[in-house]
């Protein structure tokens, strides 16, 4: 069954007719040709499909496109502005925070969302004091990035990249 929806993807307004079963991930990749969010597990376990949905990090494989009519979606492909890399993208390059790169767009979107969460004082399971402003320690980054798997295990470089992007000396 089909439905008509409007979305803004990486700043571009889109109007599409979609099968109600279409996930946001399949819409981005198969309909719009935006292959930066990756299909890893397709069950919300690996994080490779992470995008920013109305500014917050989200799993596009578990979002039905039809349920997000009117949403603003930002993929890793849309983070750079006027040829200038996003600070998180630059930090991943500086720190060599990937090997094969398959999980990287999801890692980067997740890190962008994470830094906004930390800026707003959101706690994590790694925060000893739930009411104190969280610090961007390695333990905090590891916990907050636990929804993004890297099968090359580049974690040892991803964690300092996220810290660097957050203005913390790793």
């Amino acid at each position, binding site marked *: *069954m089909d*439905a008509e929806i409007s979305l803004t993807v990486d700043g571009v307004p889109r109007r599409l007719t979609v*099968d*109600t*079963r279409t*996930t946001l991930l399949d819409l981005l990749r198969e309909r719009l040709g935006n292959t930066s969010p990756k299909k890893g597990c*397709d*069950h*919300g376990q690996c*994080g490779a499909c*992470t995008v920013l*949905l109305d500014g*917050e*990090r*989200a*799993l596009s*494989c*578990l*979002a*039905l496109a*039809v*349920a997000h009519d009117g949403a603003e979606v930002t993929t890793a492909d849309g983070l750079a502005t006027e040829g200038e890399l996003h600070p998180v993208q630059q930090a991943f390059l500086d720190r060599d925070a990937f090997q094969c790169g398959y999980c990287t767009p999801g890692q980067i979107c*997740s890190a962008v*969302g*994470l830094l906004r*969460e930390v800026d*707003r*004082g*959101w*706690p*994590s*399971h790694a*925060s000893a004091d*739930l*009411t104190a402003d969280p610090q961007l320690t390695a333990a905090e980054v*590891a*916990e*907050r*990035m*636990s*929804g993004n798997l890297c099968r090359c295990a580049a974690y040892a470089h991803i964690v300092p990249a996220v810290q660097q992007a957050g203005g913390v000396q790793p």
Partner: protein
Amino acid sequence: MKPFAYTRPGSAAEAVREVAVEPGAVFLAGGTNLVDHLKLGVARPDLVVDVRTLTSREITDLPDGGLRLGAASTNSEVTADRRVRERYPVLAQALLAGATGQLRNAATTGGNPLQRTRCVYFQDVTTRCNKREPGSGCSAVGGYTRYHAVLGVGSAMPDPTAPETCIATHPSDMAVALTALDAQVQVLGPAGERTIPFGELHRLPGDHPSRDTVLEHGELITAVDLPPLPSGARSAYRKVRDRASYAFALVSVAAVVAGEDVRIALGGMAHRPWRATRAEALLTGGPLTEHAVAHAMEVELTAAQPQPGLEGGNGFKIPLATRTVVATLRDLTAEALR
């Protein structure tokens, strides 16, 4: 994925009416569990009724000093709320111990307690499962039981062919905390509104393992109310799992200590969050020494039935639950002495 119709009605009441009259209809909120089930074939609805924007997303103060969590508030928003972190640390800790940042941004207050078991057989449509397909049997008995129940099951190795057999556990961390907090669930149904004490929301398998909760078809959670805790009350959530992050509980404990009052809820142990009422009765009014707590938990777990199975079964949960409760209460008591 089986085709389905999708609607987003104009109000919660309208959504309730639409689901109530269509046996093949389901509510959709954050979708983190339902969309996965659509893909797996575990859920095969004819109609998906989207309620994500139809209930309140606000967290508001109640006149009695408690808090009301609108059903559409996300798990992230609840943990970010300063009132929750200061007054109900057990709830913030439980939510933060579950899932990942991405999932908590989507999962909602109304949806999280209604997520379904992660029993591997329930999620695999090629196996027999009384919860997924009533009357088909239970593939978990004698199988991979590491994450399965030891409480609320009749015996070790119940009859796998019996239609009532189910040894699944409820996976929600949030639900364990809400059980210990004596939360109240606000529900809108075809017959109007009702309030359900959180501890009565979830069921044991009984004769109908396919039913996780007492909600009738068409009933929608609109809010969860947290009653005020007495001043000086302390609370905590402790979760034991196979990985440091992003794993379901083997055993978890939500505890509230308020003066003489001790409340203990266990996760990972039963088909529903398990309120340890026998242990609570033994501990109320007495000193929370390690010996007293361990003894109370031994009494609580007298009826536990370790399930044999692959990799040694799940008998380890019984001493683990006791140790986890001891550790949780020890930390809470030590905090009080500081």
